[in-house]
C-alpha cells in the first residue's frame, strides 16, 4: 500500500513536471496558426477571400447557365 502511494505521488509529480515542460515548450515554439511569425494567419485570410470570390463567380456562372437554358 505504502509503495503504491509513493508510486502515485511520483507519477503525479512526473505528470506536473511534464505539463510544466510542455507549457514552457509551447511558449518557445508556437504551433498551429501561431507558428512562423503568424504568417499562416495571413494565409488563411487571403485564401478565405479567394475562395469566397471564386464561389461567387461560380454561382454567377450557374445562374447565367440557367437563364440561357430558359431563353433557348
Amino acid at each position, binding site marked *: 500500500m505504502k509503495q503504491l502511494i509513493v508510486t502515485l505521488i511520483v507519477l503525479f509529480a512526473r505528470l506536473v513536471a511534464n505539463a510544466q515542460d510542455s507549457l514552457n515548450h509551447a511558449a518557445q515554439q508556437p504551433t498551429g496558426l501561431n507558428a512562423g511569425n503568424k504568417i499562416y494567419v495571413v*494565409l488563411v485570410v487571403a485564401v478565405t477571400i479567394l475562395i469566397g470570390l471564386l464561389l461567387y463567380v461560380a454561382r454567377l*456562372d450557374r445562374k*447565367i447557365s440557367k437563364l440561357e437554358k430558359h431563353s433557348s
Partner: protein
Amino acid sequence: MRRYWWKILSIVLLLYTFIAGLLIPLPYKTAYEDSNLYESMRNFFFHVPMWFGQLILITVSLVYSIKYLRKPDITYDFYATEFARTGTVMGCLGLITGAIWANYTWGAAWSNDPKQIGAAIALLIYVAYFVLRNSMTDMDKRGRVAAVYNIFAYFIYIPMIMILPRLTESLHPGGKGSEGNPGLGGSSLDATMRIVFWPGVLGWTLLATWITTLRLRVRLLEEKKHTVNF
C-alpha cells in the same frame, strides 16, 4: 454546362499561388542583401500577374477587333469590348497594387517612374476606348470605329509599358542604369519563384477569361432578347 475544366484549373492554380506565394522561402540575397524588398518580394506573385493577365486579355481583344474588321459580326465586337474591359480592370488593380508596393520599397506611392507613367497613360487610352465606343449609337459605325481605335490603342500600349521604360532609367527592373531594385526578371528570378509565378499568371488569366465569358453571355442574352422583341 459546357466544357468547364479550365475553370477548375484556374481555381486550383490560384489556390496554389496564394499558398505557395506566401510560404515558399525567398532567395535571401535578392530579398534581403541586394535590396530593401524583404518579404514584400512576395508581391511579385500577385502584382506582376495582373499586368501579364492584362496584356494577354487585351491581345485577345485586339484579335477580335481585327476579326470584326474582316467580317463585321456584332459578336466579335462584343468579344473585343469585354476582353478589353476585364483587361482594364486588371490593369487598374495592377496600378493600385504597384502603388502600395512602391510606397514601402521606393518611399512613395507615386514617384513618376517611367513605367508608372506609361502604365497610367496606357490605361487612360483604354478608358478612352470605352468612352468613344459608348458615344455612338449606330451599331455598325460603333463597331468599326471602336475596332480601329482598339488596334491603335494596343500599338500605343505596347511601347508605353514595355519599350519606353526600358530606354530610360527606371525604378522598375529592366530599366537602364543602376538605379532601383535589382531585376526580378531574367537571371535573378530564381527557380523557386518561377514555379509560383507562372502558374499564377495562368491562373489569373483564366479567372479573368472566366469573368469575361460571364459578361459576354449576359450581353448575348440581352442581344437575343432585343432581336426577339423586334
